């Protein structure tokens, strides 16, 4: 009896799943399209937010042109593709007078602290052509200074162009933010839906 149920009744019941499948695709057939007709429409901001493009730096809240990065090298050591290059800043060179003043103070028995190097990186290079977008660098950054950009329209025609100076990019973004947003001709998909 068990065999009969397994071999005859069950397949007949399973046939119902075919109808269910057709119902599901039929429902999707009637739903509105979600694909954006790219050159005529652009992606709306809401959908851009969930897009994970290349890695980029996050600026300090008060000073958006400098990254939160503390040059700890965690991202560089953890990157499996070795596409990040961080160069630490050197301590500022002392002028001759300052050096002399320091020496004098030291001889007088005072405690002198040499000027420390700024924590911000001097260089932050990134090779997008190698990046596998694994997100390891982002997860490991103790300063939470990295994120995926939502730069969806970025195109390059050579490998060279894919090497990005992230510090320069951050500066650009900071100045762009303060500048008025340029008006684009293309209509966003959301706006068109409303119209």
């Amino acid at each position, binding site marked *: 009896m068990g065999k009969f149920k397994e071999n005859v009744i069950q*397949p007949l019941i399973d046939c119902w799943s*075919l109808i269910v*499948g*057709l119902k*599901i*695709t*039929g429902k*999707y*057939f009637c*739903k*509105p*399209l*979600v*694909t954006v*007709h790219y050159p005529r429409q652009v992606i709306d901001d809401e959908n851009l937010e969930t897009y994970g493009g290349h890695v980029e730096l996050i600026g300090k809240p008060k000073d958006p042109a400098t990254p939160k990065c503390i040059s700890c090298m965690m991202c560089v050591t953890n990157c499996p593709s070795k596409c990040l290059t961080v160069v630490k800043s050197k301590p500022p060179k002392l002028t001759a007078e300052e050096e002399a003043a320091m020496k004098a103070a030291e001889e007088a028995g005072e405690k002198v602290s040499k000027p420390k190097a700024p924590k911000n990186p001097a260089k932050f290079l990134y090779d997008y052509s190698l990046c596998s977008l694994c997100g390891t660098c982002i997860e490991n950054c103790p300063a939470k200074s990295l994120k995926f950009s939502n730069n969806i329209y970025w195109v390059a025609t050579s490998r060279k162009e894919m090497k990005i100076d992230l510090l320069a990019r951050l500066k650009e973004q900071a100045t762009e933010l303060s500048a008025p947003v340029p008006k684009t001709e293309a209509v966003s998909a959301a706006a068109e839906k409303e119209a």
Partner: protein
Amino acid sequence: MNAFLSNLIPLIIAAVAAMIWLGLNALVWVYCERKFAGHIQRRPGPFEVGPHGVLQPLIDGLKLMGKQLLTPDNADAVLYWLAPLLSMLPVLLLFLPIPYGPVLIGMDVNLALLLILAFSSFNGLAVILAGWASNNKWGVLGAARAVSQTVAYEIPLLLTVLTVSFMTGSLSLLDITHMQDGHIGNWFIWKQPLAFIIFIIAMFGETNRAPFDLAEAESELTAGFHTEYSSMGFGLFFMAEYGYMVVMCSVCSVLFLGGFNGPFPGIEGWWWMLIKTYALLTLMVWARWTFPRVRFDQLLNINWKWLLPLATANLLATALIMKL
């Protein structure tokens, strides 16, 4: 001689009309299928060429024709090029005995059903030749699958067709249509629901359509039997596939859905035939974009364990009832 000529001329006209009809159908259905697929996946489908991409199939056809015809090294050139022709030419013949209206029929033969079944199995032969002559292991595997598939699915198809011809006592599609004259209740789908379902499933198997497209199986066999074909070699197979789809759906609508009869008396016409055929074609496309491809053993299991016994039982029951 004169009688011969007067028979021949309408036949030639019908053949040319069938050719145009086949070409048009292929164009329209390639487009419709892509649009359907797009909408099921909530994307627009072809969109750029012409308004809503209507010129896309035409341009695709031009592109196909513009490509180079290649014969692979060590392939059997004669068989290799015979295969696409063998796949395409019988389809033209298949359109002749299909009644699109009481008069709109290429050739009313008494053995129409037999003719269609006989010539539609040419597709299997063409697929086998194509795979075998290509000198390519995917081609051979695709061909091997095609043999076991088309041969297997031919049998239940034949048995279900037989049930209908048992009921009508005729093999002429026109006669079968006229037996269903009148209102929707006379259609054979009500008298033979099981045969209808088996026919639909076997139709998928016969025409190599997803979920039974195992001869082609682009994920396992690259493209199966037509891996090596370029340009119109592939184009002919492609056209033939759509041709067979249209023929099978037309036959199905004649056998079970009353052919050119409308659902109510007095409104019959060729448009009913078209509506029914296209509804069935829509179902085929819909199924293709819904169901995943079956495994090969599953395909054969469905046929030998389910379709064949059911079709046989159905045939015997019909015969018994007709005798009583």
